[in-house]
């Protein structure tokens, strides 16, 4: 473990914590513009977080400790996920601790706890949200794993840092399997981050919501942490997607100074990615809940095709 690596790791986590609400604000702004509405300010998520942290946190009388610790666990796992994903550099002291499979497990941990917390209070909305979240989760997870396997087949390693290093190092080549896996990854991340074809992050319409139903009982600093964790999750997914499919610009172990250039590269990639996400959300309509399994099955099969194509064409 080098000093530069430690610095890169710290910088990656701090940058994720700071930039994640900004990414959410940027996407919301573009969504509003594309839908012909007046956009909220770019810094609106920060203002919301500030407001929520200063508010009193009201907890239901029959809440168990799970309800209180769930926001912290969720926030912690998302922050850790942002630390593992090679956002700026591949020389990360945390990277050997967890490979791609452990990363998926980390997301699953957060999901289990937020669903438990939602059921903990005993309101019907919370239970309904938890069931839907689990339905989406158990279909999205294998698809995500298959996508990561498709990428790791090329570099012969499940370590994300290793994958990025291999992909960025090699002379530019077209990997058809990665192209298919990229489409599958986009579909999975739309589902996992409660984005439009699957869930609408801006709605409180009772019958359709998934994510909002889960966190209905939270208030004050708990809600702030949950919201921040949701932004972090989106940030982590974007970074993993960028690292796998557009790996250029990430600093490597032998060139610590490249981190200086890695930050603007990351910001530029996220800027474009955010606009694309807003565009996808605008041109798609939210689908019926019972179509979601079909959507995610398609993502899973695309990822399987990516694996098969890699086997056939050999990259």
């Amino acid at each position, binding site marked *: 473990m080098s000093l530069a690596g430690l610095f890169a790791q710290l910088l990656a986590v701090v940058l994720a914590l700071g930039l994640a609400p900004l990414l959410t604000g940027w996407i919301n702004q573009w969504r509003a513009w594309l839908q012909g509405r007046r956009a909220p300010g770019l810094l609106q998520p920060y203002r919301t977080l500030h407001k929520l942290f200063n508010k009193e946190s009201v907890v239901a009388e029959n809440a168990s400790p799970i309800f209180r610790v769930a926001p912290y666990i969720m926030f912690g796992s998302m922050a850790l996920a942002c630390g593992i994903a090679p956002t700026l550099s591949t020389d990360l002291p945390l990277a050997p601790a967890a490979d791609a499979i452990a990363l998926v497990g980390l997301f699953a941990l957060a999901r289990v706890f937020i669903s438990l917390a939602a059921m903990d209070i005993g309101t019907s909305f919370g239970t309904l949200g938890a069931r839907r979240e689990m339905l989406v989760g158990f279909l999205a997870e294998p698809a995500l794993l298959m996508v990561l396997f498709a990428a790791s087949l090329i570099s012969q390693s499940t370590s994300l840092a290793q994958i990025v290093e291999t992909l960025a190092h090699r002379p530019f080549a077209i990997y058809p399997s990665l*192209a298919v896996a990229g489409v599958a990854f986009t579909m999975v991340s739309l589902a996992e981050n409660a984005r439009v074809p699957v869930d609408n992050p801006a709605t409180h319409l009772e019958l359709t919501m998934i994510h909002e139903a889960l966190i209905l009982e939270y208030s004050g600093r708990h809600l702030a942490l949950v919201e921040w964790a949701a932004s972090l999750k989106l940030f982590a997914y974007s970074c993993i997607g960028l690292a796998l499919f557009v790996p250029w610009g990430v600093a490597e172990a032998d060139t610590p100074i490249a981190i200086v250039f890695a930050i603007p590269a990351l910001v530029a990639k996220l800027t474009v990615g955010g606009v694309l996400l807003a565009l996808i959300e605008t041109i798609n309509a939210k689908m019926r809940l019972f179509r979601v399994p079909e959507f995610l099955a398609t993502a899973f099969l695309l990822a399987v095709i990516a694996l098969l194509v890699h086997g056939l*064409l050999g990259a």
Partner: protein
Amino acid sequence: MNTLLAQSINLFAVVLLVLAFAMIAQRRILTLIHLFTLQGASLVAATLVVAYLTGQSHLYFSAGMTFVLKVVLIPILLHRVIQRLNVRWDVETLFNIPTTMLIGIVLVIVAFNLARPIAGLSTSIARGTLGIALACVLLSFLMMIVRAKAVPQVIGFLSMENGLFFAATAATSGMPMIVELGIAFDVLVGILILGVFMFQIREQFDSLDIRHLEKLKED
């Protein structure tokens, strides 16, 4: 540059395969036609790249013919047919769609394994994609089997021809010119006849469901 182009053939082949899957998963006829047009376009692109890399001028010609027929003419004809018949709504399938897609994956695995020894015998530049072409043919075949209505079956038939054409390009750098011309006109005449059939089916049974055709006499 040339290696990148050679890799782009693989990319177009995979696009062709994914579009064949998308057609199986698609419920709406209008989107089905758009997907078919896209599939034709990626076929044209793949043929052009093979033509450029192998320097075979007749492949340019067949790419042009594919463009005129499958990207322009047939989609326009299909649009007209569905407008006249007024069938833009959801497609009825015999199995549910996830099951169909699972069968599709099995077909892809079979096709890939089947094509591997054959591709080893070929010296063509795009021999690796023979498995993908075979998978496209089988998937379109599956689509023709599981759809109950006439228009999606016709689209499945056309998409199967796309797969066959790609197989010919991938394995042998294209069929002889005269065969290609023959197939192209066959497809064109086929679609015209099937169009007439669709109007007739509709007139007789007030529906495009081809299961009505199973009864041979009136009761």
